[in-house]
């Protein structure tokens, strides 16, 4: 009951505002009149009676404020009133409002955009049922990590206790060749074991999952069904020809299920293992309900022991480990995204500093207004709340602008990043992104509003009112706050700028790095020949010879080579080797080199220089003595002071029976692993015609002029020779080189853009402060000019001020950057994180920006007309 009465009271106070106010007025009037009457009765004259009554009552407006404070709905009414007041105030100061909103909008916009990517890519679970229970099981030997072997997966399927299900997945390099009425077509897909649909927890929407008795069966993606098979029901149970074999289509996965591996899952069989390796199977496991990864890993320990018992020759020290599937999918994008988050956070801080600066500048104009309201009875808390409400509204409006900007930025971003950041298609502005932006806006606004409210000269408000607001300088403490803010802005901008500079320099280094080849005029593609008949070495050798002849006969073609790897980042394999005279003792680790199978013309096609000896000829065939060609790095490592020609080495794990290969030539260094971790490594080239088991070669063609128009002729020639094989991954060497730096380009471009935004914001910040500085020194300037100071001196004085602030910012920012850029080390190629050029360059840019930003106010200062100004006083 009591509560109800209280509530009615509050509702009345909230809704019937006008009446409540009138009644309060009437009540106070009644009180005063009665008091006056009494005073008159006590013998005072009319005027004295009135004076005494008012004196006894106290400040009417102050008491009314206090009564309103007690009504219990005060804060709601205040907030509505403050909001209305704030919007009106913002509308009245359009320049301030636009500047603040732009700052906040851009700051919140870039943060929202990057957060939405982080949210979609890193935070949201993968789009499979109970995706948190999905793990990749891999095997680790010291630092080396690899997928599993048949033996491992079989052991895992038997010994699992805490894993509900396990499936294997392995890829055929370059995808499946599918026969279609229009000729062969490359479709990406993977070999899988039958439990794959169980592991992912998703069943086909049409047809069925794999059954244990299935032989040659595939499940296809909904997309493939719709686009290539016209969504026909008849296709289910029908035949699809994969790599020359007929498979039956048993099921179609639901729409929206992104089929890991591509568009086709082909049922693969685990081979009855005869040894521990090879390791090529990605094992995907689902935890049992209620189990944990720790328990499952304990399980894996016992599987480990069992498997090793079966294959005693396998090395000890192999350990299984579990990697959350999400981490496996997005892990490599994590560092880049976190780096970007740091950069956008800097931009946001600059934006907030900017808004605080604007508020302070505006606040000093508003001291009179605040003083007036205070004198009229507004409490200090009330005034502070009002100031903060205003900036909070500013923040929310900024968030709305930011959301719009983020939506645009995301469109641009997903165009550039879909190949670089996984799950980019899952990124969108959802409820959590919306909440993030609004909260960020509210927080920024509130924080920005608190600073000026705290620095209001409360004790001097009365004075300000008397001064008539003419001075209105807001006191030294606010000026100092503003300068500190500008220094902070510059320091932040410098940090971002230095990072951008380092990444840009690294990118330039990467793009101009000598790859050891001449990429102009080269086109490459890949052929994956069917096993029948090319698993016959003679058939494959014949194919190589004929294709090389035919392609070489095309006009403008000057060289045609075959290889298993391509620069700058398509290294097929590495291999152990032993140089004669350096045989390892038992248990000693073996050396590893980049390992390629090539034909002799490969070196001609890429113009890799032959430095000593010879390359391969047609007579380096099977049955002839084994030969190798190595690069300079290999020679530097093993024969720094000897003639390398004629030296011998063995391929693979050391064994006394393996044949010796003779070193017949030395060629220039070529980069096969690009990026920060790559560079030139010891490389061994072996003769393709002596290793014919690998029948999926890259073809490298050099032509005079533009090689691209040749592709259709090449396609015709290949089809004439082997109609079942499409050309895969057709690209010019220039495209490959360019593509190898796509990630770095993406990162560098984003950082440079963010640095530009940070610079512009910092520039507006210093512009504001210096303009204000100039305005507040008008009198001083006028006097100096009257005393004969020349324009140059006046401009110089202002610029000195600006440069001092910039210099402080540079000092603080450089110190911060020295600590921060260490985080960049992994992203830098041949650039030190403390690179002097980047630091100095960034500082110079900052100084230049400071000078440009301050030119206008300093020129304005020089135009001050002493007569006018001094007469104003």
């Amino acid at each position: 009951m009591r509560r109800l009465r209280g509530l009615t009271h509050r509702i009345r106070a909230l809704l019937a505002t006008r009446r409540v106010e009138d009644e309060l007025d009437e009540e106070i009037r009644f009180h005063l009149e009665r008091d006056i009457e009494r005073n008159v009765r006590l013998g005072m004259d009319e005027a004295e009676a009135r004076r005494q009554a008012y004196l006894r009552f106290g400040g009417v407006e102050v008491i009314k404020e206090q009564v309103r404070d007690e009504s219990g709905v005060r804060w709601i009414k205040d907030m509505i009133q403050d909001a209305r007041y704030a919007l009106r105030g913002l509308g009245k100061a359009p320049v301030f409002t636009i500047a603040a909103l732009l700052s906040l909008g851009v700051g919140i916009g870039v943060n929202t955009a990057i957060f939405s990517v982080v949210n979609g890519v890193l935070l949201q679970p993968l789009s499979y049922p109970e995706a948190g229970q999905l793990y990749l099981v891999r095997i680790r030997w010291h630092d080396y990590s690899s997928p599993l072997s048949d033996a491992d997966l079989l052991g895992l399927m038997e010994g699992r206790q805490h894993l509900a299900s396990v499936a294997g997945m392995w890829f055929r390099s370059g995808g499946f060749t599918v026969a279609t009425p229009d000729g062969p077509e490359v479709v990406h897909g993977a070999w899988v074991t039958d439990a794959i649909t169980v592991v992912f927890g998703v069943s086909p929407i049409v047809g069925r999952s794999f059954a244990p008795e299935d032989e040659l069966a595939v499940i296809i993606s909904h997309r493939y069904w719709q686009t290539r098979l016209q969504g026909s029901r008849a296709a289910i149970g029908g035949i699809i020809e994969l790599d020359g074999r007929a498979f039956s289509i048993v099921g179609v996965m639901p729409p929206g299920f992104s089929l890991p591996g591509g568009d086709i899952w082909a049922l693969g069989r685990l081979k009855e293992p005869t040894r521990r390796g090879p390791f090529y199977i990605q094992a995907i496991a689902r935890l049992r309900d209620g189990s944990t990864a720790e328990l499952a890993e304990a399980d894996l320990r016992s599987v480990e022991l069992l498997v090793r018992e079966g294959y005693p020759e396998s090395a000890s020290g192999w350990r299984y480990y579990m990697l959350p599937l999400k981490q496996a999918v997005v892990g490599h994008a994590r560092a880049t995204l976190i780096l970007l988050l740091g950069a956008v956070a800097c931009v946001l801080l600059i934006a907030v500093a900017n808004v605080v600066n604007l508020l302070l500048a505006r606040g000093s104009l508003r001291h009179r207004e605040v003083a007036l309201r205070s004198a009229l009875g507004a409490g200090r808390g009330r005034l502070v709340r009002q100031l903060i409400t205003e900036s909070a509204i500013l923040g929310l409006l900024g968030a709305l602008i930011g959301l719009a900007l983020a939506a645009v930025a995301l469109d641009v971003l997903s165009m550039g990043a879909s190949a670089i950041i996984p799950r980019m298609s899952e990124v969108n502005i959802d409820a959590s992104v919306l909440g993030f932006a609004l909260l960020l806006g509210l927080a920024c606004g509130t924080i920005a509003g608190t600073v000026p409210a705290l620095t209001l000269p409360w004790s001097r408000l009365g004075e300000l009112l008397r001064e008539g607001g003419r001075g209105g300088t807001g006191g030294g403490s606010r000026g100092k706050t503003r300068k500190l803010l500008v220094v902070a802005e510059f320091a932040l901008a410098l940090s971002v700028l230095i990072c951008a500079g380092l990444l840009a320099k690294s990118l330039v280094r990467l793009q101009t790095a000598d790859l050891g080849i001449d990429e102009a005029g080269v086109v490459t593609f890949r052929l994956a020949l069917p096993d029948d008949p090319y698993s016959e070495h003679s058939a494959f050798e014949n194919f190589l010879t004929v294709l090389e002849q035919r392609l070489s006969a095309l006009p403008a073609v000057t060289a045609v080579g075959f290889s298993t790897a391509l620069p700058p980042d398509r290294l097929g394999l590495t291999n152990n080797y032993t140089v004669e005279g350096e045989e390892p003792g038992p248990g000693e680790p073996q050396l590893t080199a980049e390992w390629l199978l090539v034909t002799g013309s490969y070196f001609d096609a890429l113009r890799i220089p032959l430095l000593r000896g010879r390359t391969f000829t047609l007579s380096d065939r099977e049955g002839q003595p084994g030969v190798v060609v190595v690069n300079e790095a290999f020679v530097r490592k093993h024969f720094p002071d000897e003639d390398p020609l004629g030296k011998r080495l063995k391929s693979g794990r050391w064994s006394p029976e393996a044949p010796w290969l003779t070193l017949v030539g030395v060629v220039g260094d070529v980069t096969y692993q690009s990026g920060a971790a790559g560079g030139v490594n010891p490389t061994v080239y072996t003769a393709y015609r002596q290793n014919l088991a690998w029948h999926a070669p890259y073809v490298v063609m050099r032509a005079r002029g533009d090689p691209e128009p040749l592709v259709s002729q090449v396609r015709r020639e290949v089809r004439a020779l082997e109609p079942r094989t499409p050309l895969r991954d057709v690209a010019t060497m220039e495209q490959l080189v360019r593509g190898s730096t796509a990630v770095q380009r993406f990162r560098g471009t984003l950082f440079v853009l963010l640095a530009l935004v940070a610079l512009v914001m910092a520039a507006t910040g210093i512009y504001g402060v210096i303009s204000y500085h100039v305005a507040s020194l008008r009198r001083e300037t006028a006097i100096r000019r009257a005393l004969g100071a020349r324009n140059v001196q006046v401009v110089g004085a202002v610029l000195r001020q600006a440069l001092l602030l910039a210099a402080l910012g540079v000092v603080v920012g450089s110190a911060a950057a020295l600590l921060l850029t260490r985080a960049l080390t992994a992203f830098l190629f041949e650039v030190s994180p403390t690179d002097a050029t980047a630091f100095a360059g960034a500082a110079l840019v900052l100084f230049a920006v400071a000078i440009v930003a301050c030119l206008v106010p300093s020129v304005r200062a020089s135009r001050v007309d002493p007569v006018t100004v001094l007469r104003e006083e």
Partner: protein
Amino acid sequence: MVDHRTDLLKGTLDLLILKTLDLEPMHGWGISERIQLFSDAVLQVPTGSLYPALQRLQRQGLIVAGWRRTENNRRARYYKLTPDGRRRLRVERESWDRMSLAINRVLQVSY
């Protein structure tokens, strides 16, 4: 401006208002006059605190207000105790009595 509304005073003023209204419904001016009268002019009720206090008590549902004519036929806002207000008065009085007893004892000890 000096803030009169220390906690003790706030509670005390509320108690005095409730006590005054326990006798009969009254308007704001009357309440301040009566408190002064009853306390032999020892307690000056600062008007600055009276009206906010009345507002507070209303919000708490301890008193209700309504417009009425005075004996001189002028319109005035009269305040009246609710049953909750009466109950609160009793409780507050008891605790006040206990409190003053305790204070008295302390004062006696120090004699």
